[in-house]
């Protein structure tokens, strides 16, 4: 398994009074080489799960591991590429310097690294701005730089938090194509998104989260009828759960 999550629960201190965990006993497995879409309304707990996988926050209980290594082990992140939601970088660095930092931190060196930086920047249509400081970049350019940073070391597993946010239709197409390429290369992609059409286009399986609980996990083609869209399926599922929750 590329990603294994077992009985994962996360309670934030501010939520303790309401007694509702942000993530509630979540069990989830993502197989190697698959593109997994992580869906849910705002506040469902998607970003919390991703942050636990990256060890930015610690679970209250349960475990999360990537490639069999616990998420708390920094060396486990060697083969992971991560794109945060709304990425921010050091303003006074250039895209080339940021990617060089990312590559070197992942044990890349010399000419191979320079070549990878040039290729990736060209692929993400950022070559013209590679020597420009990031403070001069538009939102879409920053997002693409974030994606380049996530992919610079050719990771086995990509964890992307809202990779399409802030991108115009061309940028979204570019990201979708990149994800398809990763699938062809046998890389695992775990990404969260609100844009259901993109999920439908690129994902092998999806997980739908609401109030920190997994409502659905499986293959879209097998579970959605031909005349039903993912949006209908998603809305029905969430509404049903909300009704159950409200009593």
């Amino acid at each position: 398994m590329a990603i294994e999550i077992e009985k994962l629960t996360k309670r934030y201190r501010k939520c303790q009074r309401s007694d509702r965990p942000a993530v509630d006993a979540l069990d989830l497995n993502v197989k190697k080489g698959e593109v997994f879409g992580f869906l849910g309304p705002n506040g469902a707990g998607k970003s919390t799960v991703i942050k636990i996988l990256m060890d930015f926050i610690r679970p209250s209980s349960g475990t999360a591991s990537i490639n069999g290594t616990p998420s708390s082990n920094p060396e486990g992140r060697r083969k992971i590429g991560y794109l945060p939601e709304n990425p921010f970088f050091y303003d006074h660095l250039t895209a080339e310097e940021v990617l060089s930092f990312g590559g070197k931190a992942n044990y890349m060196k010399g000419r191979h690294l320079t070549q990878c930086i040039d290729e990736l920047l060209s692929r993400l249509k950022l070559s013209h701005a590679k020597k420009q400081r990031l403070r001069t970049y538009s939102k879409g350019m920053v997002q693409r730089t974030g994606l380049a940073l996530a992919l610079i070391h050719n990771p086995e597993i990509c964890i992307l938090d809202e990779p399409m946010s802030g991108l115009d239709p061309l940028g979204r197409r570019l990201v979708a194509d990149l994800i398809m390429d990763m699938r062809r290369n046998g890389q695992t992609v775990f990404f969260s998104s609100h844009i259901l059409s993109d999920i439908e286009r690129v994902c092998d399986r999806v997980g739908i989260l609401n109030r920190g609980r997994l409502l659905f996990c499986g293959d879209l083609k097998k579970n959605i009828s031909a005349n039903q869209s993912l949006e209908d399926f998603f809305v029905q599922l969430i509404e049903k759960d909300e009704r159950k929750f409200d009593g």
Partner: protein
Amino acid sequence: MDKIWLLSKVTYKEGVRNRILLGIVFIAVIFSAFNLVFSQMFAHDLSKVSVDLGLSTVSLAGLAIIFFMGINLLARDFEKRTIYMVLARPMARWQYVLGKYFGLALMVGTAVAILGIVVAGGVKLSMIMAPQHIPANYSWKIFILAICFNYLGLMTLTAMAQLFTCLTNSSFIALLVTACSYFIGQNVELVRKGFLEEGDVNPAYYHLIKIVTWIFPNLQAFDMKTAAGYGLVLEPLALLWTAIYAICYIGIILMLTILVFQRRELS
């Protein structure tokens, strides 16, 4: 070690390219020019005034860099989440703390070195203009030592600023607490001498002051303006102990920062 150096370089680049740093250095250069004019207004100890003003300029500019840039650079990582870019790599949290600290140390060191050269130029010029006021034992070695110990004091404060930034979510609170620590650190020796050596002190006060002197660094120990101004002889052993004191204090504070940061949630 490679990763610490890698992050230090990034932090250093981000710091030195910031216009605030240029602004602070520029103001300090103007202060040095002003020093030339101001010191000529004194009839006595002209060199002492010049050295005093020069070293104070370095010290003040160093403080401004830590308060307005260092804390900002550290806090931005949490506020803007730039820290994700670093910790998403196979980099342990202790490496992050040390990488950031050494990056800031390089940045402050570069600024102090530039200012030191500018200030030394100003002092030299004022000495050329009034050679009769140069103290008999004046030594440039002591002047350089004074700048080095000033830098050690600034590094102690930087370590404290990093700890406070890790403890709080707000750069403003970190700035406030660091500034308070600086003022306590500057006066702790004075208070200790005033109260504890007097003997007739309320026991509660006595213990409180003793605790404060143990917790806060004695930043006055790094101030060698008087020795540099008058060319007083400095005891090598005392200098060595002061340097060891700074290194130990910085080491303890960095360890505390790592402990705090290991537990911190970056949500």
